[in-house]
């Protein structure tokens, strides 16, 4: 990729999808969320506690999630 090509959407292997700019993102239950930062990370693993955004949970094995309380 040349220095001047800039993807707006980046699929991260084993991680979230990064989206640049202002977007409305609809979550699994149909609720629409507006992005609030220059680049946002959208959850792909389905386990985020702050869906539709990524919270890093994809890095934990299904049995290794930290206690939530």
């Amino acid at each position: 990729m040349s220095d001047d090509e800039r993807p707006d959407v980046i699929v991260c292997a084993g991680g979230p999808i990064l989206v640049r700019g202002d977007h409305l993102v609809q979550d699994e239950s149909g609720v629409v969320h507006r992005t609030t930062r220059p680049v946002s990370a959208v959850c792909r693993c389905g386990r985020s506690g702050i869906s539709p955004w990524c919270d890093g949970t994809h890095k934990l094995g299904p049995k290794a999630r930290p206690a939530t309380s």
Partner: protein
Amino acid sequence: MLTPQARGGLSAQVLGALRTGDVAPTLTRVRPDDDADAQITLWALYEQHYRGFDDADAALEWHPTLIALRGGLEEAFVADLRSRFVPPPAVGPFAESFFAYVAAFEGPSVATHVQRRADRGQVLELLRARSLYQLKEADPTTWAVPRLPARPQVALMALQFDEYGAGDPARQHARFFARGMEACRLDPTYGAYVDDAPVEVLAQNNAMSLFGLHRRWRGAAVGHLAAFEAASSLPSRQMAQGLRRLDLPEQIAAYYDEHVEADAVHEQLAVREICAPLVEQEPALLEDVFLGAFTCLDLEARTARVLLDAWAA
């Protein structure tokens, strides 16, 4: 902020010189008493490049004797960081290798203790210690910006823009933390708790300044950033849960909520859009990127150990 308290013979002389403006050329021959003396001296010399001290002349920032003295302390500090460094076993595709390296690092976790068992006094002590960096959050990495090629430079600016509030002062991370401190009835003044900071916290601060202020350490600067971000989202969630468990003010929990979300973005940007293209263009920097990452994780582990030991946790 006023100059901090000395922690030994060298810092007494250097801080005295900063206050009086009388910098003896023989200062460069004074050896620190111990690590605490060396780290507070280095911290004070670096601080002149950030906000400085109300009781020191700003013209001393580039005083040749102080810069030479700083150079000697940095040499010893770098030698120590290098001697502790455990390089990655093998580096395949950069992003996967980097995330695996961070994930494989084993160290004690302050966040897990805060989440489950810490009392209010311990959490407030932690916030005071963290404030040394968190009130200048992102600043040390900004030094690296003009030292990077185009692609990583653009990505670092995107990340830093978010750190600095994306145009909204209320969302600036350092201000976010200051509001949280205020709500906890802590002093949010920049540098207010430097005299209480364990030497390990000073070393964490100093490593970031060292990497940021030297072009030759630009690889370590972005490696440190990437490891910091990659080790932040999950612990930030634990911190937020612990703070709410203790009924601490919502403002300080919100600071950690913000980092759960922001750092899940930043870790991807730092690893894939900053470090990966940098080492692609400048392969000789690969080891420094990992040195920076290791230093971040290692110094945090040292701080965690000291705090947890003190709390008998």
